[in-house]
């Protein structure tokens, strides 16, 4: 078995910026099996029935770290927990990026907003061999860019309004970098419109593209069929689950 329900002690929780929290918990079983792009399904409160899916940001020994933004009741309750609290976590879940398939090759990582976090383990893996493009609304929303840069990956930050890094969208920076260089693959995560834009550029340039999708979830295991997205399979379209068949899909299958 490669997924577990664990009652994991929180070892660290802190606010990175207004409304954005880093949370680390200790779980040997989840840590040992976690792969880049997978997620954990967290019981955020006894008062809420369903779990909440959050991507795995990093794994260090037996410690798993996630970074999440407070959006509603679940993430709010999670943000109010403290170190030492026991967290009910199910994971690791889903299929992540094809990290090993591209080892030794050139992979660029492109993320937008809170979509940047599942890419961090890939940056750690590929280091200086990869380029990272992180996009945010403005300076106030920038997070984790130093961590990405620290891996050795060439890290570029763009903001919509130019208040930090260079002005523009990740797709602008992507096109600019393509003028002097070209990767074998791009791993992307972020809002749908951004993913589509990144995919289109990859397609024009013959670059493999993997994207991570989000959908509202129930079980997180592939059993309730609540989290589906249309995916091209052979010459038809199937509704595949984001939790079990994804969250990472090949760009050409979903766009």
């Amino acid at each position, binding site marked *: 078995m490669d997924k577990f329900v664990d009652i994991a002690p929180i070892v660290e929780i802190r606010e990175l910026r207004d409304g954005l929290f880093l949370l680390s918990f200790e779980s040997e079983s989840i840590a040992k099996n976690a792969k880049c792009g997978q997620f954990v399904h967290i019981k955020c409160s006894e008062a809420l029935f369903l779990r909440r899916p959050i991507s795995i940001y990093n794994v260090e020994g037996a410690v798993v770290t996630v970074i999440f933004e407070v959006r509603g009741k*679940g993430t709010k309750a999670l943000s109010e927990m403290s170190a030492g609290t026991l967290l009910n976590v199910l994971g690791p879940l889903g299929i992540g990026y094809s990290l090993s398939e591209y080892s030794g090759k050139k992979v660029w990582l492109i993320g937008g907003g809170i979509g940047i976090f599942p890419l961090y383990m890939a940056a750690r893996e590929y280091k200086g061999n990869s380029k990272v493009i992180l996009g945010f609304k403005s300076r106030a929303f920038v997070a984790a860019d130093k961590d990405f840069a620290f891996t050795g990956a060439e890290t570029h930050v763009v903001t919509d309004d130019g208040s930090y890094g260079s002005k523009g969208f990740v797709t602008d920076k992507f096109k600019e970098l393509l003028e002097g260089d070209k990767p074998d693959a791009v791993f992307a995560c972020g809002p749908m419109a951004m993913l589509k834009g990144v995919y289109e550029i990859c397609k024009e340039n013959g670059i493999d593209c993997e994207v991570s999708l989000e959908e*509202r979830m*129930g079980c997180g*295991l*592939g059993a*309730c069929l*609540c*989290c589906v997205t249309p995916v091209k399979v052979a010459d038809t379209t*199937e509704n595949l689950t984001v939790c079990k068949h994804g969250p990472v899909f090949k760009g050409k299958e979903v766009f």
Partner: protein
Amino acid sequence: MVDMSVNIAGVTLKNPVTVASGCFAFGREYNEFYPISELGAVSSKGLTYQKRLGNDAPRITETPMGLLNSVGLQNPGIEDFVKYELPFMKEVGATVIANIAGKTVSEFAKMAEILDETEVDMIELNVSCPNVASGGMAFGVSCDAVSEITSLVRKSTKKPVIVKLSPNVTSVADIARAAESAGADCISLINTLLGMRININTRRPILKNNTGGLSGPAVFPVAVRMVRDVYKAVKLPIIGMGGITTAEDAVEMMIAGATAVSVGSANLADPYAAYSIVNELAEYFEKNNLKPSDITGSLIEY
């Protein structure tokens, strides 16, 4: 361990805890956590004659202690179920209830005929799905339609027939009586309650299907009341479901009249939910020196 077996229309379930259709797919995912043969029975995802893609996402949203879903019967179709899913379920030793949902009356009969030739243990007629445009709940709210479907299926198979009722009716007892006189062997209830949530900022429904079916702890009291109503109205065994998350809930449902129970949404919150209920229920029967038949319908009303 105590003997928790119960008999439903000649089929022996090793314990009264089954899992509800649509919350367990075909058991593969949960069999990674515990052997699904430890359950009383597994009800398959709702099957249709032809493969169905279901509704567009979002298909789920949380509600106070529950959830709304609008999956819309996504399934591989009856043929693929028989070819690929049933062999797996049987191989791991599960007692299998095939949950079927015809678009038309005759589709129910055609599917029952196909299943008659298989190792399926029981057939559950889903005349109560609130998330499909044709068939579904429209059948389950009419005594005539329930009667017609049940008697046609009755003629198409020797397998025990369970009729799964909708709570979206004025008198669930009337519908249960119609199923009983048409030849049903067992009644299961409740399916989900038709509901809706709206995003107040966009004024758009949260579910792409606009409406969905409510399930989970929030519906438990409604389910208990309806099981009691049906227990009083018919002589058939009842599989009670709706909001069960603990062994205490299961006992309560049995006291109201259920011979067996079914665990649905709780599986979404905790992969071990149904298995934990089996174990806790065994403790309950042992500690109180009771067997399932001692509590079914043992309600003492005012």
